[in-house]
């Protein structure tokens, strides 16, 4: 059954992404100030939101694990975090490319970009912790606690960075341009691409989840075999 779901999702994602890409490249007009390069924004911002979606999923899954103690939730938390990291990386890299082409700098200590980097490091720490613990129950328990702490911390950091940046204004990566996208065609495309990327995220989480379940079963069998 899950195989069919994956196929359907995969097809949906493929269609959406291709269609969006076509529209982005050929149908949409150029933005007033920036020219064609701004189109990268259609991936930059939706990737950001897809990552947030993944992190929220990880938070909920981690909390559910601590309450229910079912390792399934732990697998979901891990998969969601990994996929979130992937999308966050897309967000960071597209941001860097955009900045380089538009303003000539690879990195701007822009509030949003800085926060994205911090988030990335925090959740990478989650993966590092998981790698360091062998026992599955211990790993699930401890990483669930870390996941909750991580979410609270990045939530607080978001506000803190904004205040920090207002006191040290620097080059701002035109997220402002995002706010001026009143043109409904452009706004619509943002939502469309978010839909595409979010669906891709779900697909990737499901695939990763299956991998994880299989790995768990193999580990269990190995332990059983060693005991004999």
């Amino acid at each position, binding site marked *: 059954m899950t195989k069919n779901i994956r196929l359907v999702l995969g097809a949906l994602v493929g269609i959406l992404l291709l269609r969006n890409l076509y529209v982005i490249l050929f149908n949409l007009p150029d933005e007033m100030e920036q020219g064609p390069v701004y189109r990268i924004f259609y991936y930059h911002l939706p990737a950001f939101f897809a990552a947030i979606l993944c992190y929220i999923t990880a938070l909920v899954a981690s909390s559910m694990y601590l309450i229910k103690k079912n390792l399934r939730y732990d697998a979901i938390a891990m998969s969601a975090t990994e996929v979130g990291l992937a999308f966050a990386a897309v967000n960071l890299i597209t941001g860097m490319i955009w900045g380089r082409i538009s303003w000539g700098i690879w990195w701007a200590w822009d509030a949003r970009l800085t926060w994205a980097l911090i988030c990335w490091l925090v959740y990478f720490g989650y993966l590092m912790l998981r790698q360091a613990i062998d026992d*599955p*129950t211990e790993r699930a328990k401890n990483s669930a606690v870390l996941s909750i702490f991580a979410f609270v911390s990045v939530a607080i950091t978001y506000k803190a960075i904004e205040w920090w940046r207002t006191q040290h204004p620097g080059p701002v990566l035109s997220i402002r341009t995002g706010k001026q996208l009143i043109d409904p065609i452009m706004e619509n495309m943002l939502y469309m691409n978010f839909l595409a990327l979010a669906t891709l995220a779900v697909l990737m989480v499901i695939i990763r989840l299956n991998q994880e379940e299989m790995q768990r079963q193999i580990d269990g069998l190995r332990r059983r075999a060693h005991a004999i």
Partner: protein
Amino acid sequence: MPEPVLAVDHVYKYFGDYPALHDVSFSLNGGECLALIGRNGAGKTTMLKILAGLSGAAQGEVRLFGDSPRQASARRRIGLLGHGIGVYDELTAIENLTIFAQLYGVSASVARHWLERTQLAHVANAPVREFSRGMRQRLAVARAFLHDPALLILDEPFTALDDRAIALLQGLLAEAKAAGRTIIMSTHQLREAMELATHVALIERGKLVHFGPRSAEMLADPTYVYRTFGAA
């Protein structure tokens, strides 16, 4: 009928998918002494850790004095002697025992009393770092007994004890048993265990394959349990 001191009810414990304990059930009443035997890796230490409140059972229930092992009221009445001696090397003997007396809510004079009982009074103010191995073992015993626990949980207590420490421990355990305290100890030292035990349990690969009173055959030949109830 009074409630059993210790009740283990269909307990499972997993490491991942692997069952370290599989449907273990037994109970002990006050004044009884259980010898928990089994090969290395059978699950004895896992079971004892759950009883001591160090670990949680994945399934099933454990009740100590009618409470969960994590309740402070239960833990106050447990004396634990594990693999490590559980005292601080950089502190003196009297400092160590005073700390544990405080944590268990007994008066500090008990610390001094137990130093004397374990023949460590002459090194009361020396750091544990300087102690010989036998002295460290005796201090560990003092730590486990000083709050007069109603339930003693001992994980392979006779391993690596010198003769003085063995004699001390056996004496203390016999005394505790006579005073109606409950003892559960895992051990490979079958002879010492069979002398003290009122009940015997054999764990094999996480399953409790035998639980019952200590019989005359067991006392005569400690390996009787393995041969009769064990698988291989």
